[in-house]
Each structure stands twice: as structure tokens, then as C-alpha cells.
């Protein structure tokens, strides 16, 4: 029986090698994989350039501030205002010293653009409330963002299934229509095994082509081999197998080649196009994305209230001890303005933090729903799995923002602490500014949720596999 199967495999490979349509599909698939990798690599290059430019800008800015500080300390220059004073912990922390922080690309970032074209390349962390720096946008044509990129994820989610279906859609029906199914059955072969072997060859070919092309693409793009390669290879194999087994299942039901083509095209449309779109509509309806207007109003409300509180405190102080008004209580004085600003920033930071936490919780609930619903759509599951492998999905950005939050607190403690104490920054302080360092878990993209998504894909493929095996069992009777 083993030799029988190996003969089938050899014959099938020989047939495929002589089929121009097969080679057309393979060439198109390989080109699409390389185009996807090249396009994402260009995007990564642009992102890296943006990060480098931001870091160079920061270095130049700090050098300039340090030079100004030396001039001020030596008495050569008198700052025109606290805003222009390099010793001002408040203004350096709020504005001049802002540090560009970037999410480092994951080892296999070349796989998917994911959310990286929507997120800014760097976030300029300052002592301001998070609403003032977290939502900065990079200049991008919104029409381009809407269209989406040609990345490997797009090729794998949309094109790989089409390549598999184009090769497998008539795996049984063509044999039947050519009369070779009855001929093969008459030889006493186990038709189920024969057909499954043919299916394995036909499904395996585009999967292998995608894997080899991706491997070559990664090597050319100088991506260091990592465990993520294995995860991605598994995702590609299981997702491709799902579509191959689905084709086997449909073929086993005994329809004509035209019918199978239509049924599989309908399945692709339902699972790749309409399914994810409908699930997005459902998640939008149940857990709409927060508009952020609430955050804006909270920050402004906190500002107004802090200013009002400050005015009330000053008025009370003036009423109680008008003869003994210290400088920081005299409206309009530099010290009073500083104290006022500190109060406003502290109030806004606290209030905005609460709102952002609430929004984040809403986004997590939405993501949880999408994660659950993704088990209804292999395309959505694959998209989420592949972007997790690439480290450009929601999971890694959430982890990045969490670390960013910790760094923001560290930054505020450093600068606002000195501002509250009215302590001037020195050159030593400049050398001690907090620096963001991503944790190894973030750098190595160890927090991805790929594994359960992979299991989801395996479960879907298994369902189709059972369906294919059961339906192809009828081949012998159909042939007879």
C-alpha cells in the first residue's frame, strides 16, 4: 500500500509539473510573497529612518540645552522667560527635553505591517498628561491607510487560499469527468488514500512554495532566524491545509468541477471577505471604539478646575494675610505661574489617566470579543496570528503602551519632583534624565497570543479534514 501511495504521489507531481496553470499559480504566489516582504521592508526602512531622525533631533536638542545651561550658569546669558530657561525642570520636562520612544521592531516584523502604519514611529514622552503626546499622528494619506498595505500577511490571508483552491478545486471532480476515477477504482486501489495523497501533494505545493519563498525573502532581508520562523511556518501550513482540506471536502460531495469552483469561491468570499467584515460590524456595534472626546474634555475640565482651585486658594490667602504675600502667591509672578502650571499638569495627568484606563479597558473588551469571534473566521484568525508573529498587532502595542506608562511616571517623578521643589536642573541632572529601555519580553516579542490562534486554526483544519476524509470515502462508490 505504501508503494501504491508513493506511486500516486510521484504521478501527481509529474502531472503538476506538466501543467502550465500550476506553474502560473506558483509563480504568481512566489512573486506575491516577495512583493509583500519587499513592501514591508520598505515600510520598516521608513519607520527606522523616522526613529533615527527623532533620536538625532533629541540629541541635538539636549546638546543645545546643555550649551545654554552652561551660558546661563556662567552668567553670559539671562533667559528671557522660565520657558526659555534650561534650568527649568518644569519646561524641560514638559517640552524641551521630551524623549522619543519607539517600539523596537520584532525579529519577524517584515511579515506584517499590522498597526505600525497607524501608530506613530516614535512617541515623544514628556511630563505632560498622556493625551498630549500619546496620540500624535504621523503624516499619512488616509486613502492609503484605508487601502491597506501589500504585506506578507495580506498575501497569506488572501492569496494563499486562492492558490490552494485554484490547484485543488477539481481534485476529484476532474478525475470523474475525465473518466479516470472509475479506471483507478477498477485497479482495486484504496481510492480514499489515493485521493488524500493527491490532495496532500496539491495542497502541499503552494504551502511549500510560500514557505520557501518566505524563507528566501527573509534571508535576503537579513532577518536572523528565530523561533518566530517556526511559528509562522506552522501558521502558513495549517492555514493552507485548512483550504486544501475544504477543497477536498467539497470535492468529495460529488459535484462537477464548475460547481466545486463556485462553492469554493463562495466559501472564500464568506470566510475571507464577508465574515471578517460582519464580525467587525458586530464588534463596532457592541463595543464601539472610544471617541477620545471624553479624554479631551476630562483634560480640559481638570485644567479649568485646577486653575479655579488655585485662584480660590490665592484669594483665600490674600484675604487671610494680605500683608505677608509670598512671591509664589502673587498673581502673574514667575513663581506663581510655575506653581499654577504644576497644579494644572498634575490635575490633568490624574484625570486623563483615569479616562485612558477606562478606554483601554473598553478596547480590551472589544479585542476579547474579536478574539472569540475570530474562531468563526480562519482568515481573521490567520491575520491576528501573523500580526502577532510580526509583533505589529494589538497585543504587542498594548504591552508597549504599558511599559510607556511606567516610563512616563518615571519621567514625571524626575522632572515634576524638581519643579515642585523649585529645584534648578544642573548639568549632572541632564546626564541623569531617565531613558526608556524596552524589557526583553517586548523586544523579543514574547507576549504574543499566537499559540491559541494556531490551535484555533488547527481545530478548523481538523474539522475540514474530518469532512474531507468522510466525503472522499464515497469516491469509490461514486466511481463505481
Amino acid at each position: 500500500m505504501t508503494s501504491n501511495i508513493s506511486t500516486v504521489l510521484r504521478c501527481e507531481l509529474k502531472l503538476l509539473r506538466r501543467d502550465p496553470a500550476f506553474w502560473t499559480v506558483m509563480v504568481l504566489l512566489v512573486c506575491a510573497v516577495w512583493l509583500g516582504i519587499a513592501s514591508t521592508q520598505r515600510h520598516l526602512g521608513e519607520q527606522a529612518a523616522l526613529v533615527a531622525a527623532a533620536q538625532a533631533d533629541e540629541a541635538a536638542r539636549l546638546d543645545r540645552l546643555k550649551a545654554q545651561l552652561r551660558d546661563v550658569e556662567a552668567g553670559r546669558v539671562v533667559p528671557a522667560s522660565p520657558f526659555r530657561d534650561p534650568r527649568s525642570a518644569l519646561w524641560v520636562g514638559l517640552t524641551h527635553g521630551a524623549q522619543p520612544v519607539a517600539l523596537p521592531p520584532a525579529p519577524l516584523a517584515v511579515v506584517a505591517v499590522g498597526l505600525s502604519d497607524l501608530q506613530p514611529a516614535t512617541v515623544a514622552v514628556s511630563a505632560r498628561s498622556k493625551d498630549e503626546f500619546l496620540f500624535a499622528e504621523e503624516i499619512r494619506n488616509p486613502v492609503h491607510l484605508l487601502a491597506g498595505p501589500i504585506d506578507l500577511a495580506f498575501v497569506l490571508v488572501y492569496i494563499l487560499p486562492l492558490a490552494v483552491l485554484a490547484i485543488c478545486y477539481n481534485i476529484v471532480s476532474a478525475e470523474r469527468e475525465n473518466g479516470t476515477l472509475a479506471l483507478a477504482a477498477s485497479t482495486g486501489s484504496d481510492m480514499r488514500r489515493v485521493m488524500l495523497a493527491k490532495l496532500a501533494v496539491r495542497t502541499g505545493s503552494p504551502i511549500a512554495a510560500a514557505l520557501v519563498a518566505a524563507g528566501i525573502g527573509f534571508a535576503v532581508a537579513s532577518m536572523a532566524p528565530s523561533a518566530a520562523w517556526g511559528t509562522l511556518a506552522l501558521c502558513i501550513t495549517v492555514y493552507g491545509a485548512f483550504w486544501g482540506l475544504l477543497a477536498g471536502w467539497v470535492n468529495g460531495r460529488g459535484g462537477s468541477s464548475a460547481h466545486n469552483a463556485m462553492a469554493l469561491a463562495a466559501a472564500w468570499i464568506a470566510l475571507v471577505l464577508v465574515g471578517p467584515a460582519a464580525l467587525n460590524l458586530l464588534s463596532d456595534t457592541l463595543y464601539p471604539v472610544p471617541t477620545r472626546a471624553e479624554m479631551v474634555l476630562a483634560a480640559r475640565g481638570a485644567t479649568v478646575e485646577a486653575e479655579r482651585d488655585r485662584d480660590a486658594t490665592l484669594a483665600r490667602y490674600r484675604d487671610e494675610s494680605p500683608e505677608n504675600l509670598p512671591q509664589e502667591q502673587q498673581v502673574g509672578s514667575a513663581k506663581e505661574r510655575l506653581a499654577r502650571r504644576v497644579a494644572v499638569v498634575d490635575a490633568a495627568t490624574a484625570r486623563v489617566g483615569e479616562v485612558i484606563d477606562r478606554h483601554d479597558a473598553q478596547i480590551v473588551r472589544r479585542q476579547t470579543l474579536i478574539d472569540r469571534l475570530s474562531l468563526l473566521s480562519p482568515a481573521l484568525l490567520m491575520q491576528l496570528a501573523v500580526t502577532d508573529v510580526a509583533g505589529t498587532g494589538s497585543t504587542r502595542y498594548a504591552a508597549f503602551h504599558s511599559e510607556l506608562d511606567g516610563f512616563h511616571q518615571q519621567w514625571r517623578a524626575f522632572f515634576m519632583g524638581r519643579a515642585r521643589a523649585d529645584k534648578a536642573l544642573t548639568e549632572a541632572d541632564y546626564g541623569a534624565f531617565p531613558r526608556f529601555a524596552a524589557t526583553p519580553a517586548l523586544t523579543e516579542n514574547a507576549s504574543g497570543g499566537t499559540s491559541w490562534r494556531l490551535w484555533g486554526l488547527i481545530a478548523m483544519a481538523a474539522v475540514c479534514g474530518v469532512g474531507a476524509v468522510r466525503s472522499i470515502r464515497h469516491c469509490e462508490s461514486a466511481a463505481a
Partner: protein
Amino acid sequence: MSAVIDSLAARPPSQGGAVRAIANKEWLELRRHPRGRLLAWLISTLLLVSLLGGVLHHERAHQERDAAQQGDHEMWNSQGAKDPHGAAHFGQWAFKPPSLLGLADPGVDAYSGGAVWMEAHKRNDAQFRSARDSGVAARLGGLSLAFVLQVVLPLVIIVLGFDAVSGERERGTLRQLMAHGLPATTLVAGKALAMLRALAYLLVPLLLAMVVAAAVMAEPAERGDAVLRALTWVTAHGIYLAGFVALTMCLSSAAPSSRAALVLLLGLWLAATFFAPRLATEVSHAAVPLPSAQQFKRQIADGRAKGFGHDETHPGYLAFRDEVLKQYGVQRVEDLPVNMRGLALKRDDEIGYALYDDLFGKLNHQFDEQDRFRAWPGIAFPLLALQPVSMALAGTDRHHHAHFADAAEAHRRVIQTATSEDLIRNQKYGDTSYRANQDLWKSVPAFDYHPPSAAWALRQAALPLALTLLWATFCGGAAALAARRLRVVG
């Protein structure tokens, strides 16, 4: 087809009559065929669900936006006594109102930001792209009327019509029809008419639903415009879908077999729907590069360095101060009958306005260039042409976004002028304790945005609209040509 053959044998009808007879027969078959019925239910359900989803989303976004805009205005009015320029720094926020027809085509709204902070000295770009929070899943697309009409319905036309003519040939009925003297063009026209009739059954109720939604949900002053937009939107999609009917008839007539017709049509649909938009994006991005946000900020900072902001040691400030002193015929700033700080802020703002007009104008021009680059392939890949038209009529394209951003900038200037004028008139020289009160805040009108008219929207989308029409006309011509050259046997 035997009924048509019988009627042809009984008495040769006029050409129009024959077209109608064929269309009626095809329509009957379409209604009886399980494939036709299933697709009709599927599409109707998708249209209904996406319309309801769109209405729900619009209502929620509308309420949230109105509440935010009102809340912001109240906050502006209640900010208490403070330095007017401090109030200008506090500024206001402009929240973009959701376009009514956004319920049909959400367009780039999720990718362009929905709020602009109007503050002193700076023209800010819109912030808060909701797509950032929607996650990766949203990049696979959402279910909207536009998605159903632009992506799914062309596919349904292909599935229903790929064997319309080739199937007759394969069954041998085409030879019989021709033998009875039926012109091939009449046959193809009849089949196309049946498809168009099926489309009309879908689009007319949709049109009515949209017109009713527009009439009910729009503000009274914008009702006529909303209805006009809805009518034009459905018409544009009708033209696009009619183009697909013609394309399907063309390839069904010209292809050697039904299978070949199906493969060709599916290939074209895939290319037009998935590859062309992404490829066009890549090409236009490479052809017309945009500045990075940092480069753009640098350009602004360089330009702003020519102004003086709050820097009273800046040479520009000193020159302006001397000019003012000369104008009022005094020697010292403290002798001026007006406040120098207010005058300087106003002058600095005016320098900034010219700079922002220039830089944002150039940036918008670059966006326009990219969009034009993207639109031209629409002559062959119609979604590239139709999408800008659809978004423009829905009020969710980049031009509408730029219109909103310009309105926000105009309002920012109103705020700046009001606060600086107050300083000019009321602050005494050297008096750092001067505070304006609610009277000034209330004198600044609330941000009240009115979207542009349908005619304006159509002007923005003139090129893609022309390309859509050209493509549909070309498909019609190709179908007629294919019908004339129809082969009776494969």
C-alpha cells in the same frame, strides 16, 4: 430558452420586443433558480444589516460629537477670569461631525482623525484616528453599504452571468436562436436587461431607504443636499454595477467556454478589488513622497522663527515695536494708547497664518497628487475610480476632511483675533494681573461647522467620476462588439 424559440418561430418580433422577451425569460429563470434566490436573499440581508449598522453607528457618533462640541464650548465659557492669551492657549476643540451618508460609506473617517485642537500660535492637524484603536481585525474591512455594492455585488453579477451566453452555446441553444434570425446583439441586450432589472430590484429600495434616511436624519437646512447626495451616490454605484453587467456579458460572449469566462471575470474582479488599490497605493506613495511629521514640524518651526511669539528680544519684534511707536508718534512702549503685547501677538499670528496657508496648502497639494496618481488606473480597475466618488458623495473623503480642518483653522483665527484685540484694548502696559472674564469668552462664537454642498463634492471627484463613466461606457461598447462577433459554436 424554448419559450423564446417558440415565440420567434410563431412571429418574428421587433428588436425591442425580442429584447424584452429575452429579458422576461431570463428574469423568470433568475427568480426560479435556487442560485438566484439564494444570492438575492444574501445580498438583501447584507444590504439591510449594513444599512442598520451604518444608521446605528451614525446616530451614536452624531450624539457623541454633539455632546463633545457642546461640552467643549461650555468649558471655554466657564474657564473663569484669566489672561486672554492664556485662554487662547487653552483654545477650543473642533470635533468633526459625522457625515450623514457616512452610514453608507465610512470612507477615510477612521483614518483621518476626528478632532482638531485650536490653540494659540499653532495650526494642529486632526488627531485621534479611530482605526488605531480598532485593532488589526478592522484592517480586513467593515460591513458597509459601500462594501456590499463595491465588492460583493460585482461578484454576484459575475456568478449569475458568467455563463449567460457561453452557457447557451455549450447547451446548443445559441445555434437554434441564431437559426431563427435572432440578432446576437438582441440576445445579449436581453440578458443584460434581465441582470439590470435584478439590480434595479436591489438598488431602487436601497435608494428609497437612503433618501428616506437622508430626509429624516439630516438637519432641515441640509436635507435637500443630503437627498441629492444619496441620489447621486446610488446612481454612481448603478453605473459601476451596470459596467460589471456589461463586462460579464462581454466575456461570457467572447470567452471560449463558461469556465474560461468565469476564470477571467474572477481574475479581473480580484485584480480590481484587491490588488489594484494596494498596488496603486504603493506606486503613488513612491511617486509622490510626503514629508514626515517631524520634517513638517521643522518646516513650521523654521517659518515660525521669522515671527517672534513671546520673544521680546527677537529682531522681528524690535522692528515691529519701532514701527508701532512711529505710527503712534511716541518714544516709549508705555506711552502707547494701546497694548503692545496684544499688537505683537496679533502681528505674530498674522505671520503664522501666511506660513500655515503655504505649508498646509503644499501638503494638501501632495495629497491631491497622490490621489490623482491613484485615480488614473481607475480606467481599467473601476474600484479605484468609484471609491473616491463614493467617499466624496458620502462626505467621508480626504477633501471633506481638509474642508473641516480649514474650517477649524478659520475658527482658530477668530479666537486668536478676539483674545489679542482684547489685550490691545484693555491691558495696561506692564500690568501682569490683567484678567478677561466670561464676557470675552462668550463673545467668541461656538465652532459651527457646515459641510460643503453636493456640487462641491462632485467637483472634487470629477476625474474619478469621469473615469467611472468611461470604464462603464467602454465595457458597454466591448459587450456590443463581443455580441456582434459572437461565435455560435465554441
